[in-house]
């Protein structure tokens, strides 16, 4: 349970080493750079936005190129590839990439160009096909559509809407004889006609045709339509060849996929590096890096740096009011839950890291809510498999998630055994349905069946809740002690602590409560009376002191009374733990329902087969829904009930200058680099 002590670090070095020092810092990833020193006449900040834009461009080009590649030449990936983590490569490869950089960017651009060609050609094909469609009714016409006149004749080639017979057309044009009409083709929508008349009648014929909605075809050409269609077909097939070639060209680049991925990472690292260069102060020959470093890393970093370069390192304790970044450090048991704490908020100014204490309750509460040995074993097995399969190279976030559910699973197994739940009552159902066993339960619970004794389970849940809340108050005491508000420990924490315990004892001594909860405890009158005294004294302390920031005595008293009203908050907090009972019963009873439904199939044909299907399917759904419920409500109990007692958060997370890459990580050739 700790937050790492942070120090301010100043590194003064020569500009000629700038690139290599910054790359070294980036690979070590233990310094958060800040730009809090102002510029002066000697030291300036450089504007690096131009360089960064070019990196951004090549990153997005490489990204697009990989997407295109993946579409045309998909890479086979197994389900477990998410466990693999980033590939580790050496600094030599990193340095060597510099010479290749330009050619890879060119490859990326080439892929994008090819893809553009493909898209354009596809559009072209659509256009050509549309033309063919227009031309198809004209195929039997053996003169070009653009043909218009000879020396003495004028021709009209076009369509009139709807279906017409030759006679009907002649009838319309009877006034302008002699002329020739050919119907090239006709359909319900339109009739394609060729009309030839003498030039002097042309105007009249055109008007007559217009009257029956004549229009010229939307494509024209100097070739006969049939020939034209042939040409178009050829152009389409050429276009297909172009697409094929472009695709082949892209696929040929698939050997460069790795390099394209690395290009993204490489330029991302350079992008971050240039961001830092833009933040540090530089004079003609010297530059200054300023930032935060965890104290325990400081010595080794300084040693490594000064063994390689000529530089000076200086430390400074951060000032009280400074916004120091927070980095949590916990042991393997609690570490997976740092993410849960960060999901609420990191510890703020003067607060303690609650992860370790929270971890104990987290696993405990999760286990009680799911409480099924079978489900727990599945969770443990799945997470353990993932951790082993992922090995050393697994990413930290994935590892922590798996570890968290591994511990949750262990707790689930424990409570499953306590409450006698193994895939609901699967063993009992199988034993009675298929083996005629009459003595159930096959495996009795170590403690009790919550379904049979819900009140006992409720009491247990609420008792656990009180312990959880009191632990929260203890955390508050510790925190106030650390912050040196000694008097507040008595006023804000001890008084409540005493009030909660004494009122619990008073409630337990009441017959009504004892009857409801089915408790069989006798509280001696002395204890009950002294609890009453303690409760009254602590109430008075709370009422008199909790409004102490107000100077007006009347206001102070009212504020104190209002604070005392907060006791109802404790009541609702404790009742909130009844979700342990509700969720625990939900997973158990739904499991039983599934088993019962499965057992109904036992007597039909192929019964055992159906039984297995229903059981597998049903429990798969049940474990998913209830694990989700347990996860959400464990978080809620921690965030609202537990953290509400002492924890405010508001810390800023430590964001070191490191390799924020997606696919690769560069490893310095040394033992302790990470």
């Amino acid at each position, binding site marked *: 349970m700790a937050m790492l002590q942070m120090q301010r670090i100043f590194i003064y070095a020569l500009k000629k080493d700038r690139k290599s020092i910054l790359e070294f810092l980036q690979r070590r990833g233990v310094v958060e750079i800040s730009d809090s020193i102002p510029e002066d006449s000697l030291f300036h900040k450089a504007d690096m936005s131009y360089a960064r834009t070019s990196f951004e461009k090549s990153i997005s080009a490489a990204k697009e190129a990989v997407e295109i590649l993946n579409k045309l030449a998909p890479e086979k990936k197994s389900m477990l590839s998410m466990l693999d983590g980033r590939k580790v490569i050496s600094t030599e490869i990193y340095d060597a990439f510099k010479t290749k950089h330009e050619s890879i960017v060119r490859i990326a651009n080439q892929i994008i160009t090819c893809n553009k060609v493909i898209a354009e050609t596809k559009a072209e094909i659509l256009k050509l096909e549309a033309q063919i469609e227009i031309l198809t009714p004209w195929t039997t016409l053996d003169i070009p559509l653009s043909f218009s006149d000879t020396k003495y004749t004028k021709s009209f080639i076009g369509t009139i809407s709807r279906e017409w017979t030759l006679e009907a057309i002649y009838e319309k044009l009877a006034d302008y004889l002699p002329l020739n009409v050919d119907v090239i083709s006709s359909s319900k929508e339109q009739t394609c006609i060729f009309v030839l008349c003498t030039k002097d009648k042309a105007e009249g014929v055109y008007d007559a045709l217009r009257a029956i909605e004549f229009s010229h075809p939307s494509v024209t050409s100097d070739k006969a339509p049939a020939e034209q269609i042939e040409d178009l077909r050829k152009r389409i097939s050429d276009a297909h060849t172009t697409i094929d070639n472009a695709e082949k060209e892209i696929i040929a680049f698939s050997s460069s996929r790795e390099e394209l991925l690395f290009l993204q990472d490489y330029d991302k690292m350079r992008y971050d590096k240039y961001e830092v260069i833009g933040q540090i102060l530089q004079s003609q020959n010297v530059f200054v890096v300023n930032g935060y470093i965890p104290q325990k890393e400081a010595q080794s970093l300084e040693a490594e740096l000064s063994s390689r370069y000529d530089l000076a390192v200086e430390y400074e304790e951060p000032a009280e009011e400074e916004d120091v970044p927070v980095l949590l450090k916990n042991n393997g048991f609690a570490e997976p839950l740092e993410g849960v704490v960060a999901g609420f908020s990191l510890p703020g100014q003067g607060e303690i890291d609650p992860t370790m204490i929270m971890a104990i309750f987290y696993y405990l509460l999760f286990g009680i809510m799911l409480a099924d040995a079978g489900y727990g074993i599945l969770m443990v097995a799945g997470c353990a498999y993932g951790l082993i399969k992922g090995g050393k190279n697994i990413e930290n976030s994935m590892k922590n998630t798996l570890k968290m559910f591994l511990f949750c699973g262990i707790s689930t197994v424990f409570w499953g055994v306590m409450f006698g739940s193994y895939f609901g009552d699967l063993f009992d159902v199988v034993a009675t349905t298929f083996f005629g066993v009459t003595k159930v339960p096959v495996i009795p619970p170590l403690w009790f069946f919550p379904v049979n004794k819900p009140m006992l389970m409720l009491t247990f849940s609420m008792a656990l809740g009180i312990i959880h809340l009191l632990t929260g108050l203890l955390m508050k005491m510790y925190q106030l002690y650390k912050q040196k508000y000694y008097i507040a420990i008595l006023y804000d924490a001890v008084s409540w602590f005493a009030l909660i315990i004494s009122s619990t004892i008073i409630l337990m001594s009441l017959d009504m409560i004892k009857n409801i909860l089915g408790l069989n405890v006798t509280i001696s009158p002395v204890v009950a009376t002294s609890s009453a005294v303690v409760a009254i004294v602590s109430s008075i302390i709370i009422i008199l002191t909790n409004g102490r920031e107000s100077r007006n005595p009347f206001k102070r008293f009212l504020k104190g009374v209002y604070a005392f009203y907060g006791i109802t908050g404790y009541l609702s907090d404790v009742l909130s733990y*009844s979700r342990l009972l509700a969720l625990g019963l*939900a997973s158990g009873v739904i499991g039983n329902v599934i088993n019962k439904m499965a057992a109904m199939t036992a007597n039909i044909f192929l019964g055992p087969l159906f039984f297995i299907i229903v059981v597998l399917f049903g429990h798969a759904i049940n474990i998913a829904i209830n694990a989700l*419920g347990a996860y959400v409500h464990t978080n809620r109990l921690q965030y609202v009930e537990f953290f509400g007692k002492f924890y405010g958060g508001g810390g800023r997370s430590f964001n070191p200058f490191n390799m924020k890459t997606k696919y690769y990580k560069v490893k310095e050739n040394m033992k302790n680099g990470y």
Partner: protein
Amino acid sequence: MDINNFGIVFALMGAAAAALVAGAGSAKGVGMAGEAGAGVVTEDPSKFGKVLILQLLPGTQGIYGLLIAFITLSQIGVLGGESNMSLAKGLLYFVACLPMAIVGYSSAIRQARASVASMGILAKRPEAFGKAMIFPAMVETYAILALLISMLAVNGVTGINI
């Protein structure tokens, strides 16, 4: 006709109402959250897992309803066994199921609206997912309290001799 024959009718009505009304609320709620979630996933498919968690939150009321219905069914002997009971007892079962049915319905829908709002947090500030999850979970408390009372009541009615 013996009026006490109606005991089992009311008892079954209670069980059915718990599953039906709470289930209808959850169906509506999960649907609402799903619509919002689909929008988030359109923008960023990698958020699917988290969206799914938020979508499923209003789904629990239906499960609690099922739970109460199941407990009631097995207590009143519909799933096999003796199913004779007085009218009064049947009515008691009916009333015992009401908290789950009614609170389940309305809390599922209210929770869904909180879920939909939380989808907005997830879309714009994915790092605040922990907080986004808590808002809908706060509503669920009341469904859990109703579940608790319904469950204790159903269990309690079984022991009453009328």
